[in-house]
Structure formats: C-alpha cells, structure tokens
C-alpha cells in the first residue's frame, strides 16, 4: 500500500486537512496554502504550522463570536501526530496529503 494513502487516511492529518480546507474556502487563507506548497524542511514546516494555526485561530474566534458556538479545531494530539508523521514520512509527503484534503468535496 502506498504511504501516501496511509498519510491521507490518518485521522490527525484528516483533521488538519479539514481545518486547511475550511481556512482556504471560507476565509481565503491562500497564504497558508502557498506556504504548505513550498515548505521543504522540518523546522520550516513547524514555522508554517505555527502561522497557519494562528491565522486559523483568529478566524475561528470570529466565527465563535458571530455564531455563538464552538468552531472546529485540531487537537493537541493531532498536532503532535502531524509533526511525528512529518519526521517519519517527510515534509513533502505530509504537505501533499494535507493539501489534497483541501481538494475534496465537503459532505
């Protein structure tokens, strides 16, 4: 089985993929998309993740104020797992799987 499939179906990566999808489609966060597209090294990947989560958090808080309900957020365990996956499979493959999740239909 391809490792890309293992990554694609990983629950933590799916959660981050969903967050990226929401971020891009609802809030036009193209900056995060471009950064994930071009990141190569692990330390750069951590920086990109940090920036993405900051942007995502600000959009999520606006959503929560407006809609008066909790927004979806990847968990701490998901974040740990994602970084672990990047160490095992490489930043390239993890980012490819992440951005692929942004390509899927909702529902």
């Amino acid at each position: 089985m391809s490792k890309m499939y293992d990554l694609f179906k990983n629950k933590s990566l799916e959660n981050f993929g969903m967050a990226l999808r929401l971020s891009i489609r609802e809030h036009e966060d193209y900056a995060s998309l471009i950064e994930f597209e071009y990141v190569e090294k692990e330390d750069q990947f951590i920086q990109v993740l940090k920036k993405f989560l900051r942007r995502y958090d600000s959009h999520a808080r606006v959503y929560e104020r407006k809609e008066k309900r909790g927004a979806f957020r990847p968990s701490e365990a998901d974040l740990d797992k994602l970084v672990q996956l990047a160490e095992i499979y490489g930043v390239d493959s993890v980012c490819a799987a992440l951005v692929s999740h942004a390509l899927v239909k909702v529902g």
Partner: protein
Amino acid sequence: MTSKLFIEKTGMEMFDVSRAYGITLAYQYQLPEPHGSNVELTDLHSIYMLSYTGKPKNDFSSPKWLSLFAFKEEGGLRQAWTSLFKTFGAKRELSELIDTVKYGVQSNFPPKNNFLRAKPAIKKEDGFITIPQSLDVSAAKGFRTEKRGAKYTEGDQLFSDIPNWALACLGAVHFCKWLRADRQGGRYKYTLSVQPNPLEISVLNHREIQKDMNEGRLCELSAICAITHYAVKLQISLLKRTADKSKYFRCRYSHLIFNIMQATGQQSKPSGGGEFPLELLHNIGSEDDGQEALQMMNEVLSNGWRGGVYQDMAFSLADFLSKPTTPSLRRYVHTHLAAFLNKKYRNLYSESSLGAVMKYVQNV
C-alpha cells in the same frame, strides 16, 4: 475444434501488434458465422496466439471483405489511411497503396503452417517494402548500431515482406487511434497512433471497446496528454462493459503501444514510441470509488482545450498519470485547487475517490 495460429514478434512493438490485429481482422471477416465472432487473440510474450474455430472461406470478392479497404469518409478510415501513408507523400497514390495492402493480405491468407513470421531486412529486396515510420518509428531509424572505433551511425531503414507489411497496415488502420493534432498554419504539429496491447481479447468485444474509444475527442495539448486520456477512456469503457455480469466479456490489455511523429520544416520525423502502462488506472478502477475518480480525470482532460487553468490541469494530470509520484501529485493537486479557488472549475473529488488514487502513488 479450436485451431491456433502463432504470430512471431519481431521486436518492433507497434508493427507486431498491428500485424496481430490485422490477421485477427482477416480471420474475423473470412470465417463463416458464428465462427467469425469467436476469434480470440492472446499475448504469450514472444508470440501472439490467435484461436479460432471453423475454416476460412477465402472469399475476397464479398462486399464485407472489400469494406476493410474502403477509404471514403465513412467511419473515419480515410484519416487513418492518410495518416498511415503520410510519409509516402506524393510518390505513390493512396489508392495504389491500399491496393497493395489488399493484395498483400490476400496473397498469404491463410498463413502456411499456421505460423506468421516476419523478418525485416535492412536492404530492399524483391517482394519487400519500406516500413513507414508512421507504422513503427523504430523501423525508420532502425536499431542503432553499436559504437565501434570512430564510427557511430543511426540504424538503417527497415523493410518488410509485403504480406506482413499489409497485415500491419490493415491492423493499424482499423484498430489504432490516429490523432493529427495541434494545427498551426495548415500543418499538424504531431501525429500520434496508439492502441492497446491485447493480453487476451475476443475480437468482438475488442471492437465494442474500439467503438467507445472513437466517441468524443482526445485531449490534443500534447502527445502524452492524448495517450493518458486514451488510457483513462479505455479503463472507463472496460469498467462499463464488464459491469454487466450477465454478458460474457473477454478483454484484457497489458499496456498501450504508441508511436509519435513530430512535424518539422520539411517532413515528419520520428519523435517517440513505446509502451504506456495501464496498471495504475486498472488498479484505481478496481477500487470502490475508483470509477468516480476516473470520470473526474476524463472530465479534466476533456476540458484541456479551453486553455488557461484547464490546460494547466490537463498537463499536470497527464504528468501525474504517466509518473504517479508525490511531486507530480502535488503539482496536479495545486493546479486543480487553484482552478477551483479561482472559480473556474467547480468539480472536486470525494474523499474516497481521491483516496482510491492515493493508494497507488509511488513511494519515492
């Protein structure tokens, strides 16, 4: 009782598969019904094997037989004949060449001892004819001679005996998909011929597949786009035809064989040729939501002619399908997503259909 005929391969893939299809077609048309519908072709690595029942009629005057050599506009055969004999130019009339094909096939039918052997030669002898590059590019430049001392030459033009040449022409015209594409100022940029290599096929089922393949257009942006689009359409057609379990359908292909000629200032030159594997698309098609992924790919490639982001999507998808690695996947996902975000293309994959594709991305 089943009879068998063996077709020895020469090593020139397009020439060999066209010969195999040519002799299969000849038997299909010469055997009385229902035997004509029961002809089967199998690839046994170094030879092809034709299996049939009944005895051929050797009736070469029937309208049905003569329709094989028609070159009117009906059925698109004229385009196939003119593409095949393009490099003969004005030297010989099309009708004369087609007559040579007809008499060439008839002169050695049925093949003696149920064995068809071709021995291409580098010198033109009596009863031999040039194998045009449109039939097999490796025949035009030949097989390169080894480097010895200070001399290094291209291979010589290859010639074939007329009966085998005729069978190859017949098979190529009827079973190849011919594409003369990207017209600029009245001249075509490239000419492509592509056909699937028969792992094991029934000729009747193969012709049903060919009918599906002749519907619609291929993505003409480049030869590789056209080849990958052909492969996607072929897999969709196979899935559609084998979905009905109540009907017996026997058609398995191992890979595509293709031939590309590029237009230059004076004449067309051989540009490339070889095999395109079908394993990736077959594997995707066999997954639960694989068919949905294939339909999406077909749509992306079909829209390539629109230019702009559609063209980018088609190019990157063709690149991914010919080399399914993580970098090529990233490029395709990037272009597809860009088209979606720019509101130019609204269709997306479902998670399960994209997962079906992901399963077969190569670990690089």
